[in-house]
């Protein structure tokens, strides 16, 4: 069947004219173009999210001092109530940058990179599909994402500024800020989120349908590359966890714009004035609905990253991934458990000891599959003749960084220790270790690894290694001190970086050492930003000037995405694809090369690590 389909494809294709600019690049339904659109847009948002944080880090290191260069521009762009004429950030601006940094990084940068960019570009190639199952929905998914991004970005310029109630938008705070402006930044945030959730819905339905329906002949479930499994579980998380946030968003929009009080309790008094509302709402309800999304979201942020790292580690250790099946089952367990741990974000809300105990138990349980996956990746390194190219450096760097992020999460999962650590810089350090040197390193690894497939050229190795080395150092200088600050009791979301709580004669407080760490962190953050310049230049420069690849499979890899022309044309494969073996058949005894592609008929019975060939 596959054969006939592909034959038809060829005759069919020859009648087509080359698509023009609009059809080919802007309104394309080709999964690879959509993937690249996602990648470029999301990388820009990643940079923008970093920029917001740099502004905040200046304020934290030098509270009340004008932000150099950018301060005056901010004052011009956003008005003097946001940043003074000299360029000092206002508390409102700080709050809105904080809220938007989180929102942009999570919903507009990392998730779109992992699922929109890598999921779109790589996954269909890895399963031997000609495209996604629903190409037009795929295009719409990007368009919804783009509109959502525009709405979020434009919210900086509405009167009162962008949303400033944290990326979590807790009610009642989110409903009572900017009361003078309607619609205000929070309204934009909610509408932007509804667009992003729609985009995610279309994307996840597409990814799941594609994996279930369009696997090539012979590509059974246990022969899927681990990256595809990661996308599969992630697809379910996005599909099922996002709608409750959409519901919550609708309810909060009703609260903010139509006078309902779903999240506003009876007797709410703001700035000394009782609010004219019906009351009877529950602030806890918002938190439940929000975290019902936002905890699975954490695994959306990490699972595809693990998938990318797994591909690169198998390829560069030149041996099969250790514990492939355990990892598959672990990711399914992880996906399931991630739906029943959300309230560990809410231990301090007074929701009750019994509920807290339940969520503490499930939280400890979910660390097991995470550790299974990480350990399997670590053991995969054992005994391999490792090639330390740039993608591999980032992939290997991911392991300890994610390890630190994961292990420092345990004290937060325990009810008792969380009471001390909650809402402190310790939490910031913890989840940034997971997402920044964790997931973002995996994203860089993936970009360096699949770049030759998309462009036909390698990115520069030397500057890649510089990028890795500097990023690794500065990431740790940024996030490691945060653990110390948090343990010392420094709260997150403080405009002056805790200076108000400085030690004074006879009064215990934050010691000068802890406060001075703010400067260390900030300068490391500025340096991290500078360390990204080699990457940005490398990324564009290599399109035209990078080292040309000499074959379609430059890394000598086994998975199907390397069996296409480079870059793959519309419809991807030029020959019928049939799969004969698992995804990581490296260094098979008796095989002339040290890799055996999944679709190489070879001597299917003997040339495999599997004892028996599953059909």
């Amino acid at each position, binding site marked *: *069947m*596959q054969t006939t*389909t592909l034959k*038809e*494809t060829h005759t*069919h*294709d020859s009648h087509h004219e080359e698509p023009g600019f609009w059809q080919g690049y802007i309104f394309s339904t080709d999964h690879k173009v959509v993937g690249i659109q996602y990648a470029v847009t999301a990388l820009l948002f990643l940079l923008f999210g970093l920029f917001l944080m740099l502004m905040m880090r200046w304020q934290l290191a030098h509270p009340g001092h004008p932000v150099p260069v950018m301060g005056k521009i901010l004052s011009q762009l956003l008005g003097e109530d946001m940043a003074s004429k000299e360029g000092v950030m206002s508390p409102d601006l700080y709050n809105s940058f904080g809220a938007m940094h989180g929102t942009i990084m999570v919903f507009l940068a990392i998730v779109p990179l992992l699922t929109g960019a890598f999921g779109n570009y790589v996954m269909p190639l890895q399963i031997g*599909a*000609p*495209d996604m*199952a*629903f*190409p037009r*929905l795929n295009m719409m998914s990007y368009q919804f994402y783009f509109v959502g991004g525009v709405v979020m970005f434009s919210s900086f310029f509405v009167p009162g500024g962008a949303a400033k109630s944290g990326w979590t938008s807790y009610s009642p705070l989110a409903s009572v800020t900017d009361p003078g402006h309607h619609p205000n930044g929070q309204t934009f945030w909610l509408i932007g989120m509804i667009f992003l959730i729609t985009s995610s*819905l279309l994307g*996840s*339905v*597409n990814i*799941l*349908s594609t994996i*279930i*329906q*369009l696997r090539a002949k012979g590509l059974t479930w246990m022969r899927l590359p681990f990256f595809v499994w990661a996308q599969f579980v992630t697809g379910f998380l996005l*599909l*099922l*966890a*996002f*709608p*409750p946030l*959409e*519901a*919550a968003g*609708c*309810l909060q929009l*009703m609260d903010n714009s*139509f*006078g*309902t*009080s*779903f999240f506003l309790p*009876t007797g709410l008094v703001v700035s000394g004035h009782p609010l004219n*509302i*019906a009351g*009877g*709402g*529950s602030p806890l*309800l918002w938190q*439940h*609905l929000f975290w*019902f999304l936002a905890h699975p979201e954490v695994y959306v942020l990490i699972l595809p990253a693990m998938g990318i790292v797994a591909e690169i580690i198998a390829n560069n250790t030149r041996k099969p991934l250790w514990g492939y099946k355990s990892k598959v089952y672990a990711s399914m367990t992880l996906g399931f458990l991630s739906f029943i741990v959300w309230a560990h974000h809410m231990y301090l809300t007074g929701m009750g000891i019994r509920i807290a105990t339940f969520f503490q138990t499930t939280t400890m349980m979910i660390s097991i599959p995470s550790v299974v996956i990480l350990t399997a990746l670590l053991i995969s390194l054992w005994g391999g003749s490792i090639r330390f190219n740039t993608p591999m450096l980032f992939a290997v760097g991911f392991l300890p960084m994610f390890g630190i992020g994961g292990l420092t999460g345990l004290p937060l999962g325990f009810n008792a220790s969380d009471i001390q650590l909650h809402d402190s810089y310790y939490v910031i350090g913890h989840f940034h270790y997971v997402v920044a040197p964790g997931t973002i390193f995996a994203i860089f690894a993936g970009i360096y690894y699949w770049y030759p497939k998309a462009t036909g050229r390698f990115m520069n190795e030397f500057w890649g290694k510089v990028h890795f080395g500097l990023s690794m150092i500065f990431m740790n200088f940024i996030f490691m001190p945060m653990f110390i600050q948090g343990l010392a009791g420094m709260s997150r979301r403080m405009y002056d970086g805790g200076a108000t709580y400085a030690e004074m004669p006879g009064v215990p407080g934050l010691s000068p050492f802890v406060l001075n760490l703010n400067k260390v962190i900030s300068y490391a953050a500025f340096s991290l930003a500078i360390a990204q310049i080699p990457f940005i230049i490398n990324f564009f420069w290599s399109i035209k000037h990078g080292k040309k690849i000499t074959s379609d499979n430059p890394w000598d890899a086994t998975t199907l995405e390397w069996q296409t022309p480079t870059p793959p044309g*519309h*419809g991807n494969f030029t020959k019928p694809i049939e799969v004969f073996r698992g995804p990581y058949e490296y260094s098979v005894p008796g095989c002339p090369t040290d890799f055996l592609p999944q679709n190489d008929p070879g001597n299917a019975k003997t040339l495999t690590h599997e004892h028996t060939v599953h059909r």
Partner: protein
Amino acid sequence: MNIPYTVERREDTGLYNAKLGVWLFLASEVMLFGALFSSYILLRVGADAGTWPRHWLDYKLGALNTVILIISSVTNVIAWANLKLGSFSKYRFYQSITMVCAVTFLGIKSYEYYGKFHHYTVTLKDGRIADGHIQLQETTKDKLVLDGYWPASQAVVMDPPSKVEESKIEIETKDIAEKHNYGPSRNNFAGLYFTMTGLHVLHIIGGILVIFAIWGPLSGMHKTDPDRYANRVEVAGLFWSFVDLVWLFIFPTFYLL
């Protein structure tokens, strides 16, 4: 380029792509409405005694709408079955009943909404409470005219008797201490009612637009690619059945409980 299984079924899953896609989409929809129903439960359980209204909605209109939607679901399935049996004209006939039912549903729903927005509870400065539908023609800047009754207390407003003697009530504007209609901001019951039925109405509108598009403007495909056309009808029908199913939960939750 052809994407496999757009029309024919894949052997191991037994599905064509769109059917799987719509089932996944419906799973997501279950979570959306599930979250709203959960919110309903949490807010109702947490409400202070006497603050959750009863008998505010006319269950007869709700029941009528339920019957209408069930009929539309049945005709939708009969239409699809007839299409599969090769009778395009019968498909068109039954599907038009589906659409008429949907429009009737929307009509009744708008009538209910209209009533709620024009229904006021007025507290007078002397403490009396009036409750009824505003008479817009007679209401002026100085006086408010209601077609309603005088409940003895707020408790009666929250759970009105099934039959009340309605009469014309005229209230001087200067005597009004507070007035509030039965719109979404009235309380969480009204808020949830409008939010959930409103979201459901959006689904009805979306569903009927798709069914109409397949029925009318896109029906040319019936001749060029009949299998794919039947699949489209089936997939839209799955969504339509889901929308009806949501109503079967909304109706008892708001009208009966």
